């Protein structure tokens, strides 16, 4: 069953004659447990695609179906709650909450929904990501790679339908990048987590089960491993 599906997805900005066609009719489907990479140059629409899939923005036309639910017509409030329960995000600049420590950052989404934290699961994630010693640190006390790992842990903690990563290694040096990349791949497999990664970097994309290329708001040539 598709965990994530789009049908004729379009996102246009602005008005004629200055319309920017960020996404111009995108159809894609991601299966459960897949690790997908979306590769494209800057301006290709890959970030917009991620925003649509994650419910951060609403499409101009077309459908986005996540976990069987069409989110294209949801209100701001509904999208927020939908994100809370179904999507995990990893951003290029980590975006951790600076006033919370590592552990609190990781369980934030869970707590926002008033759920009890599955301690063993969360501990498992923390251990897998090598953060056990840093549980009480504040983000400004961590290296870039560590911060990104915290972000990944946070994204995994709610067991979302899909984990969306936007240039996850963009702010890291090459060594740390490889490290973090491995973490993404490994956790995807270990926790059976569907993952989609956006990048312009071929090196990173190779690790995915499937590579989708996007250019000028359209998809072409989806390859798989």
């Amino acid at each position: 069953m598709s965990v994530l599906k789009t049908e004729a997805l379009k996102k246009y900005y602005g008005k004629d004659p200055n319309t920017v066609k960020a996404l111009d009719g995108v159809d894609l489907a991601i299966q459960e447990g897949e690790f997908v990479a979306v590769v494209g140059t800057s301006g290709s629409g890959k970030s917009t695609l991620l925003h649509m899939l994650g419910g951060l923005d609403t499409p101009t036309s077309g459908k986005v179906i996540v976990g069987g639910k069409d989110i294209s017509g949801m209100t701001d409030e509904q999208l927020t709650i939908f994100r809370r329960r179904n999507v995990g995000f990893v951003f290029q600049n980590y975006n951790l909450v600076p006033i919370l420590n590592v552990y609190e950052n990781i369980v934030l989404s869970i707590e926002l929904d008033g759920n009890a934290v599955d301690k063993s699961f969360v501990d498992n994630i923390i251990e897998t990501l090598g953060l056990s010693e840093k549980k009480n640190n504040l983000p400004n006390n961590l290296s870039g790679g560590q911060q990104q790992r915290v972000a990944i842990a946070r994204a995994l903690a709610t067991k979302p339908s899909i984990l969306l990563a936007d240039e996850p290694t963009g702010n890291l040096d090459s060594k740390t990048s490889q490290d973090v990349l491995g973490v993404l791949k490994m956790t995807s497999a270990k926790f059976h987590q569907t993952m989609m990664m956006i990048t312009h970097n071929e090196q990173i994309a190779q690790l995915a089960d499937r590579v989708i290329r996007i250019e000028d708001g359209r998809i072409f040539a989806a390859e798989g491993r």
Partner: protein
Amino acid sequence: MALAVTIITAIAICFLTVLFSYRYIKKTFDSIDQVLDSVLARNTELAFEVAADNRLSKLTHKAVKIIQMNTMDISQTKQEKEIIQSFISDMSHQMKTPLSGVAMYTNLLLEGRITEAERQEFLSRVKTGTEKLQWMVDSLVKMSRLEVGAIELSPVPTGIKQTISDSISTVYSAAAKKNISIQTAYFEDVSLLHDRKWTGEAITNILENAIKYSSVGGEINISVETLPIYTKISITDYGIGIAPDEWNSIFKRFYRGRNAKGVDGAGLGLYLASQIFQKQGGYILVDSKPGKYTTFSTFLQNCKK
């Protein structure tokens, strides 16, 4: 008089409160009941709002997830079956060519009317073919067990240096034949979580590849680097290289690179290696400049302290 009125009003209020509370609780329970019914019926189209900030919505959302998990399990079993199916069909497909070759040459031999030289030729071809088939069957069996999970790798914390040197020894003769030297940069032995036998085999496969696609008299460099979560073992050769658009594909089953036409191989080595590493929570990355170099970086998880 006023007292009586107050008491009656108080009682009335109490009564009404109890009544409304009861009705509210009943309604809530009925809603939960409905949700559970949907779970049982595997019906994801629930009448309740899934994305709202209240308890009922949370409940509904979790119910949907349960349903999905159920369906997933079913589909997972289906998937596994499919994997096996495709595997078997791949296997039979791959084996067809050498088999038909052996069959053809055997026929020709049985027919007679061939020269002695031809007979020797054909017999050796048959031998090669069967050897190839043998090798293929072995690999396939290994792979199948690995794929389907019949064989479990047993990773233990043990030094990687030994593993690497074992691999090097295995391919040493092949390397020597092409006059290729294998250099290992110095590194502190580090204890990694890995299954020595299988990991060694994986590294061997990579080295074999490196040797295969390197020119005579070349060099192969091995280096080890420890990162926060993983340790990277890099194997660099200066052979024909691999084009970027093939990077993702080379680890696929039976894939043979575009530049690999003239070289022996079944397209299984890298696939096997990749599977072995992944099963141990590691992975392989490739970086290459066609015509210049190819580096395979293999990653294994560090031992947790």
